[in-house]
């Protein structure tokens, strides 16, 4: 923890022309493969950091001293993909648990979109994350990290998650670079469609 003793791990520096950071978030329950997915496409070894949220002193103890401030800590992993000379995509793996969403606005405002990574054996883990993403009006797709031959079809999954028909649902293997890449491409294609549809609506309205 001594800041003088540990120099940052060597990683390839960004090009000097890099100027626009872009965010995509992978949300999912514990052990579903978020970090695995980040690792499989990232140009750097995934890094880990955290954010704290401090709430003002919650009470006073028996001696009349103000109790220690209440802090919420959320840890998250991330990787990096240089898209071209100027654009750099940062890929965040974030826990879907409740306290994480308190920090969504502070950390992930301006995120392009999200991937909800689902473990078929624990589909219910994703309900809360999907609810929160809808609440934040954050576009997302659902990717089922497929650890074997699935018992259910993707349509069953769509139904189990009560997803609207326009949300893409796909299978993936988070360990495979090409598969994780396809997940990201599916998300960005979805965003392109949403963006084009919005422009059309605006053109009609004007």
């Amino acid at each position, binding site marked *: 923890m001594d800041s003088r003793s540990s120099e940052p791990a060597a990683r390839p520096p960004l090009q000097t022309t890099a100027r626009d950071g872009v965010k995509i978030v992978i949300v999912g329950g514990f052990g579903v493969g978020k970090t695995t997915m980040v690792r499989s496409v990232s140009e750097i070894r995934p890094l880990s950091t955290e954010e704290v949220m401090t709430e003002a002193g919650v009470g006073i103890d028996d001696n009349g001293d103000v109790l220690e401030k209440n802090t919420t800590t959320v840890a998250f992993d991330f990787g*990096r993909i240089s898209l071209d000379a100027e654009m750099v995509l940062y890929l965040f793996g974030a826990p879907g648990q409740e306290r994480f969403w308190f920090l969504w606005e502070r950390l992930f405002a301006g995120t392009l979109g999200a991937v909800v990574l689902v473990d078929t054996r624990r589909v219910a883990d994703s309900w809360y994350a999907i609810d929160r993403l809808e609440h934040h009006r954050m576009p997302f797709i659902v990717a089922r990290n497929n650890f074997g031959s699935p018992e259910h079809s993707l349509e069953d999954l769509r139904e189990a998650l009560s997803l609207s028909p326009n949300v893409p649902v796909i299978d993936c293997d988070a360990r495979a670079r090409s598969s994780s890449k396809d997940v990201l491409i599916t998300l960005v294609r979805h965003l392109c469609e949403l963006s084009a549809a919005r422009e059309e609506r605006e053109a009609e309205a004007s």
Partner: protein
Amino acid sequence: MIRRLVDSEDPDRLYTVTGGRSRAGDTAFDLVTLVTSRSEPTPGMQSEHVRILRVCRAPTAVVELSADLKLPVSIVKILLSDLLERGRISARHPSTPNDPSQLPDPAFLKQVLVGLQKL
């Protein structure tokens, strides 16, 4: 993978690092704001500032600095506001709109897509 840096650490350190402030100034640093040093560290500088200036010889995102310095993102933002105020760093903020209902324009998304397809 989940660390408990702050919980297990003397909170005084974070207080000292930021001179007691808990909020960054008006300059809105994003997780992915890219920071570049404009000068080399000078003697007598706070050690965290020295490290930031060294790491940021090449553009470096706020979140990468947070991982390197093993400090929470909000603390790093405060340190960066100091350096920005003194003209020691330059900051390139993301162009993406903050409001998620404001989708980026199709040309921007196309650029992202092309970059991903080249992976």
